[in-house]
């Protein structure tokens, strides 16, 4: 069982964020860290490989400036190796370009399953993983809250608004996992030290054959303007002078809830 896990390296959410005033893109100058939502995917993959008794976990990431600190975290957790795509032309990539790059990078390694988070903490589009699946010609199952491998299929409990669907899907496939699918481990000190010597393959767009119009993987989007979200309005306060229940019902009626 070989599993490729897409991991994003993002600016530390605990640190203040800023947007570049001219491109409106997120400033990614400082150290990047492993997106927390990807820690679930890494953990899930490690557990599945462990259960299978053979195979390895490969991390796949696209990041500026040869950034590997987030990858090191995943390697310290137990992944065997990492593939990093880094290229100046990729600054400001949209979800589709990112998917093209990641799909091409994943195709350079052997895999039975691709795991990704449902969405990243800094981008929130939630569209990259399914685009990767489409580009690789794989079936995809999103919002997994439980993942099991059973021979040549993957069995997924897929979170829905009402409950969950039980999905059986042939391998190879792509699965996106929700936070809470498993509890990510903290990297052990030994894991951290051994991550130093694990291989990280760095590829450029040219290495992936994605240069020029044919590849079309370079940033294809332009952010024209950014507006501050409107501040939330204060809610309605119902003071209970004995008619509280009645007031509540009237309010809900007004909103057509009852």
């Amino acid at each position, binding site marked *: 069982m070989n599993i490729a896990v897409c991991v994003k390296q993002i600016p530390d959410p605990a640190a203040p964020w800023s947007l570049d005033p001219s491109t409106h893109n997120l400033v990614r100058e400082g150290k990047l860290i492993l997106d927390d939502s990807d820690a679930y995917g890494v953990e899930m993959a490690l557990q599945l490989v462990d259960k299978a008794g053979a195979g390895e976990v490969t991390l796949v990431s696209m990041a500026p400036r040869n950034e590997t600190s987030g990858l090191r975290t995943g390697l310290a957790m137990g992944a065997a190796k990492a593939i990093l795509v880094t290229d100046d032309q990729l600054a400001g990539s949209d979800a589709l370009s990112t998917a093209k790059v990641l799909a091409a990078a994943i195709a350079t390694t052997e895999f039975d399953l691709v795991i990704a988070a449902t969405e990243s903490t800094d981008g929130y589009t939630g569209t990259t993983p399914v685009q990767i699946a489409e580009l690789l010609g794989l079936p995809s199952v999103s919002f997994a809250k439980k993942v099991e491998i059973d021979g040549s299929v993957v069995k997924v409990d897929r979170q829905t608004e009402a409950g969950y669907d039980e999905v059986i899907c042939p391998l190879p496939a792509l699965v996106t996992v929700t936070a809470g699918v498993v509890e990510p481990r*903290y*990297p*052990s*000190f*030994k894991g*951290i*030290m051994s*991550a130093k010597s694990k291989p990280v393959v760095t590829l450029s767009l040219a290495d992936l054959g994605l240069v020029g119009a044919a590849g079309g993987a370079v940033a294809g989007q332009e952010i024209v303007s950014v507006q501050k979200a409107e501040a939330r309005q204060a809610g309605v306060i119902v003071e209970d002078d004995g008619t509280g229940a009645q007031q509540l019902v009237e309010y809900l009626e007004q909103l057509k809830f009852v």
Partner: protein
Amino acid sequence: MESSGADKCADWASPERVELRRTVRGFTERYVLPNLDEWEKDGEVPRNVHRVAGKLGLLAAGFPENVGGVGDMIDNLVITDELISAGASSGFAAALLTHHIALPHIVASGDEYLIERYVLPSISGEMIGCLGVTEPTGGSDVAGLATKAEDHGDHWLINGSKTYITSGARADFIVVAASTDGAGHAGVSLIVVDTSSAGFSVTRRLEKMGWACSDTAEITLVDVEVPKANLVGERGTGFYQIMRNFDGERLGLAVHGYALASRGLELAVEWARTRRSSGAPLTSLQTIRHKLAEMARQTEVARVFTQKVATDFAAGRVGSKEVAMAKNTSVYACDYVVDQALQIHGGLGYMKGSEVERIYRDARILGIGGGTNEIMNEIIAKRMALV
């Protein structure tokens, strides 16, 4: 964002150490903080916590690879720093990391039997060990021990008592300093004693001003028979083994000092920003602001100096004098900072249950344990050729 334990010496902020800090902080937040109040009441840290820490490799830092160790001495200090900066408390760090004072003599001896039996299981978190030097009659005078180990051919017969022994109530074994060959330095040997041995007993669990979650024991040994194989290193070299390892313990306590100060400072800043007086936060008052500035300065000086001395010590560039200076610098900074942190909290600072109150009590031991402030000054004075 700069974490409160952020390092100022490049060595201390390598990518691996940043990652290690993240693991330590995660461990603290998940396993320690939710339970700390309970352990403070119980007077001890449960064994299972050692196993969890062992699995994460947090007990292995600084020991050589052949005994299950990984990384170096600075890594271990980084762990201590982050535990305390993240709020796990100085007492918890003392209890969890007692093996760092119990094991080094055995490791240095290279004795395979003792390493297999005591070192490996302590580093994996299965066993708890402690070090017994101090006696009811005095701790500073290590050469004047009253505990005796008599040579009975195939075994030692040990009689005596030890006090203020960290983790002594939970320990599976104790490395005892005993006199094997008469009075004075040359008569002291180190011997490992299983706490399950007949004649060994914990006579009292000592109640302390601080470090409440760290159990501290008074111990007696009455005709305890110990196999000859349990002698650590050469007979009669105990005093030198203890002295050699004191430096490591003292650097650890220097880290406790600045880390605890940095936690106190963080709490004080938070409080001064939110607590209001005459309609404005305390930080709007110059006397409070300047207090915080001075606390920050002293904490920073202690941190930078301690980290530099530790880095130089690890590289063999400095010795006991600089270590003693680091310990006192850090302890004095910590004393000042925790006192002022409590002051800034006003009445709340004096209330049981507030973290700053605990920190204030915890800090007081740092100038006593591992050699007192006065003993540090003696070490410095001697190396200045003043005596």
